[in-house]
């Protein structure tokens, strides 16, 4: 469904050039929950920005349903890590979730239903008319997820969405995303630096190397659904996978150059 082919991204020119992504090659199949893990500074955010069409790759290409991505594709949604800065502060929850739907030209009734269903599936029904700053961090991120869901994308990208919330909230949100994925049947690409999270959530894990980034390895997660924070994590298979991923990340780091991948590079967002 989504193919990343020989993706490369270099920032800057000449001597200042920083190669964030070297040569990335992987695939995401329909209905999969793919987790992308890697050490800090391995260009994960750059990868997502390329996948979502916000950045143009320097080399290679990305295809969604066999069409080259050349700007944000219509059936794709992205949930950012900084939820506080991705919600429009002058809009209520309802308005925030409904806003992307304007593109779809639905009648008011249909749009309203989509919004309410999405908000309900993230458990925020009573908060439709509140404003983002009135909500806690975890709730704000849920609004962002609801917004993505109401948009009815075929593929949902998530950029370390739970990194900025506390551990309790993170566990709740992890279960939430599994549940809505089940309800909505959407394909998810989930970037994280948290190894436990990647094993807990994923059908498949893609491990990246440090910059210049390549695919270190891909592994299938054979844990049963539905996943549970306690039961799943008690299984020996979980521990095995976890250790495997951990070693995989660590292994490449010792032999890599201390390259600085500019994760926080001001993405030249064309306005």
């Amino acid at each position: 469904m989504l193919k990343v082919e020989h993706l490369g991204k270099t920032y800057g020119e000449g001597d200042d050039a920083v190669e964030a992504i070297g040569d990335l090659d992987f695939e995401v199949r329909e209905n999969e929950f793919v987790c992308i893990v890697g050490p800090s500074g391995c260009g994960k955010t750059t990868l997502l920005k390329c996948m979502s069409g916000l950045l143009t790759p320097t080399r290679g290409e990305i295809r969604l349903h066999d069409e080259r991505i050349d700007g944000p594709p219509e059936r794709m949604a992205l949930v950012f890590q900084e939820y506080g800065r991705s919600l429009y502060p002058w809009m209520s929850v309802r308005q925030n979730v409904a806003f992307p739907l304007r593109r779809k030209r639905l009648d008011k009734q249909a749009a309203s239903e989509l919004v309410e269903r999405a908000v309900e599936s993230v458990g925020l029904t009573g908060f439709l008319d509140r404003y983002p700053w009135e909500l806690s961090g975890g709730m704000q991120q849920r609004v962002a997820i609801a917004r993505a869901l109401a948009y009815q994308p075929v593929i949902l990208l998530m950029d370390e969405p739970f990194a900025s919330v506390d551990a309790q909230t993170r566990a709740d949100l992890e279960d939430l995303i599994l549940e809505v994925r089940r309800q909505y049947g959407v394909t998810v690409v989930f970037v994280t630096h948290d190894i436990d999270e990647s094993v807990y959530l994923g059908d498949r894990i893609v491990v990246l190397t440090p910059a210049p980034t390549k695919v270190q390895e891909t592994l299938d997660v054979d844990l049963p659904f539905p996943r549970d924070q306690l039961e799943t994590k008690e299984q020996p298979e979980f521990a095995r996978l976890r250790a495997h991923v951990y070693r995989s990340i660590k292994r490449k780091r010792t032999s890599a150059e201390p390259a600085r991948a500019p994760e926080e590079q001001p993405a030249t967002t064309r306005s």
Partner: protein
Amino acid sequence: MTRGRQRLLATGLEVTVPILLLVIWAVASSASETYYFPPLTDILSTFADTWVFERVGSDVVPSLVRMGLGFGIAVVVAISTGLLLGLSPRARRAAAPIVEFLRAIPPPALLPFAILVIGVGNSMKVFIIAFVCIWPILLNTIDGVTGVDPTLRDTTRVYGINRRDRLWRVMLPAASPQVFAGMRTSLSLALILMVISEMVASTNGIGYFVLQSQRTFAIPEMWSGILLLGILGYTLNGVFVLIERRVLRWHRGARASALG
């Protein structure tokens, strides 16, 4: 002194000091023999005679209408231009030297130009008010647009928001705190230009009245006009702040939660 007591004293002072000063003024001036500083009571009674509805139609209304029109035109032109310039770095670069120069010209220096080209009527006054008021709003709008959070911009792009919505439902609200700051500056400029243009080239209006009173040595009338202008300035500013607070409620909430 305890905190609570201190706060009470502070509030008390805040209310009573202005009143006290007024009383002192009234008392001190009542004995005044100076021609230029008539007793406060005289000024107030003249105020009542002149402005409590006597001259409202002939002077206050034309003044306010001119000011309102000029300010309104400035707001519309400045915001729309500011939005466009804010979104296009190249347009900004091209326009920069012109904008920087035009806004540095002290507004009164433009009055003779306006008189020359447009004449001495109402349109000249509306023009000069509008022209001068554009700059603070324009520059602030540009700042507001260029300062929009990149994550917000990325979000807008990812969801494919169309151009019109992007402009009016994202950029404009995002820039509105800055825009309002610019409008507040322009509001006081509008009042100033209104007064000056009426002093220089008019046959009615509050500014005209005040200067005319001075020329004909109607001193209490002059003071009453000054008082009116002060009240006008204060009220306009106050009303504007109220409106701003209402419209930007979300902004204060968001700032508070970001800082706290």
